């Protein structure tokens, strides 16, 4: 390997493709509040904290005898979506793995110290990424979901009143998912049903209607979260070779789901359904809304059930969490993107703990915005959307 192969090839000053970084505002690139500890003075609601199951042993006490026997007698140890490979720097921020072993994000005390305390977080919403959706044995998937939800109540929600939970459901069998929602939907700390963004069938399909009906009945938000392992590729052009492609490219999976949900009429069938797009970024949303609105006008007869411009449905029914942020080279671009959303209601603060998207806690939301936009993003959009 030559020495130059190790060094990132950075172009300097203006280059032949017209890229001219010198035009950027340097002043705006400074840390927003000049503090090392964020300690914001306003309320904080964190819409994405992960609570990980470290081992199937934690769920065994909640499983039916048959499945305990099955798991002991087989090689099965958990549904592996491998959304967050251990070696990837994005998977776990330094120090988030418990000293006694186990997954980053699996220890409540560390979540308190590293996710709730730094921002004096009022409410933290857990997104359990236990991917029962990738299990082909329907009964095992359903029983594991129930076990994971009971475990969430016992180990997370009951001990820590600042936390809210997201129900794990076997969305590959929507009727069973609906049963699960009916089982726990009345628990005051469950505010959401979480689905992986990678699905077997696009989420706009009527296949999922029983699940959506149950979520609406219990007034739960539907959270669509990074990752999943449905069996087909995470890109529409086939399997990528690297985790970088899969990780950064997940934004296109989110876009596919947004298109499917709006165009196939989910919000016409369920006018009260609210959907949070979690851990998918947000900078792609303005261009998607522009294009959908433009083409909807000419192709109106193609989707007659879509009665309003797609962006109108999106602004009414969908919200996005802020991390991982696209990290534009100039923080002003973030404000420009929010302006392009043409709404100050759509973004919700999230750390995505324990995933590592920023170095200092103060960088979790790296821009100072005018009020009320600022307060909306830190807490009020989530308070209103989740009815907290």
């Amino acid at each position, binding site marked *: 390997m030559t020495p130059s192969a190790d060094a990132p090839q950075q172009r300097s000053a203006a280059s032949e493709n017209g890229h001219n970084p010198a035009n950027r505002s340097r002043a705006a690139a400074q840390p927003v509040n000049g503090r090392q500890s964020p300690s914001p003075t306003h309320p904080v609601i964190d819409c994405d904290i992960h609570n990980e199951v470290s081992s199937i042993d934690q769920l065994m006490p909640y499983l039916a005898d048959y499945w305990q026997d099955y798991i002991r007698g087989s090689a099965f140890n958990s549904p592996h979506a491998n959304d967050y490979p251990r070696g990837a720097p994005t998977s776990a921020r330094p120090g988030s793995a418990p000293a006694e072993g186990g997954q980053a994000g699996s220890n409540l005390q560390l979540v308190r110290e590293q996710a709730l305390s730094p921002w004096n977080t009022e409410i933290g919403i857990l997104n359990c990424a236990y991917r029962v959706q990738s299990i082909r044995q329907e009964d095992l998937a359903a029983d594991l979901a129930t076990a994971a939800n009971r475990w969430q109540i016992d180990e997370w929600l009951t001990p820590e009143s600042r936390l809210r939970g997201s129900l794990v459901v076997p969305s590959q069998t929507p009727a069973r998912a609906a049963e699960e929602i009916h089982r726990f939907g009345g628990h005051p700390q469950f505010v959401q049903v979480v689905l992986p963004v990678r699905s077997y069938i696009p989420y706009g399909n009527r296949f999922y209607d029983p699940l959506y009906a149950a979520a609406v009945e219990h007034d739960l938000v539907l959270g669509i979260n990074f990752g999943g392992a449905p069996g087909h590729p995470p890109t529409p052009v086939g399997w990528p070779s690297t985790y970088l492609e899969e990780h950064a490219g997940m934004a296109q999976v989110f876009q596919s789901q947004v298109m499917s949900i709006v165009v196939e009429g989910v919000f016409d069938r369920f006018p009260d359904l609210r959907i949070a797009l979690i851990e998918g970024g947000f900078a792609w949303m303005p261009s998607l809304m522009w294009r959908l609105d433009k083409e909807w006008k000419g192709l*109106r007869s193609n989707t007659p059930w879509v009665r309003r411009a797609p962006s109108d449905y999106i602004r009414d029914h969908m919200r996005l969490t802020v991390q991982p942020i696209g990290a534009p080279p100039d923080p002003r671009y973030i404000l420009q993107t929010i302006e392009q959303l043409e709404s100050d209601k759509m973004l919700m603060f999230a750390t995505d703990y324990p995933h590592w998207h920023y170095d200092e806690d103060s960088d979790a939301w790296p821009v100072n915005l005018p009020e009320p936009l600022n307060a909306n993003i830190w807490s009020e959009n989530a308070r209103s959307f989740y009815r907290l």
Partner: protein
Amino acid sequence: MTVVVIAKVWEIPPGERKIVVPFRGRAGIGVFNVNGDLYALRNICPHKRGPLCTGELTGHIDAAAPPSAGEAELTVEGDGEVLRCPWHQWPFEIATGRCLVDPDVRVKTYPVRIDGNDIIVDLDD
């Protein structure tokens, strides 16, 4: 008052149209016979100035729900009452000039009457 004889009544039977171009040096107008009622529209789409009146006739297309599970209930109400611009397929209701995908957009319409065998369009507002 600027009134123009566009056609004899037998030239535009139901479901047909007559486009008069050029018309006062502009893109002209189209006169449509929709189930026996006559309407005149400016032949310029207010979206991007395409030749609107040369577009396809259609109706109010509606659906009770997405057609993925056997309850499509896809319907066409008033077939022939809607005109789609040939450039970008924006639909307009012929009777009112109203654009069906953007409430702020409307194509100019003109009063039409029949005098004897003449179809007459009133070009003044």
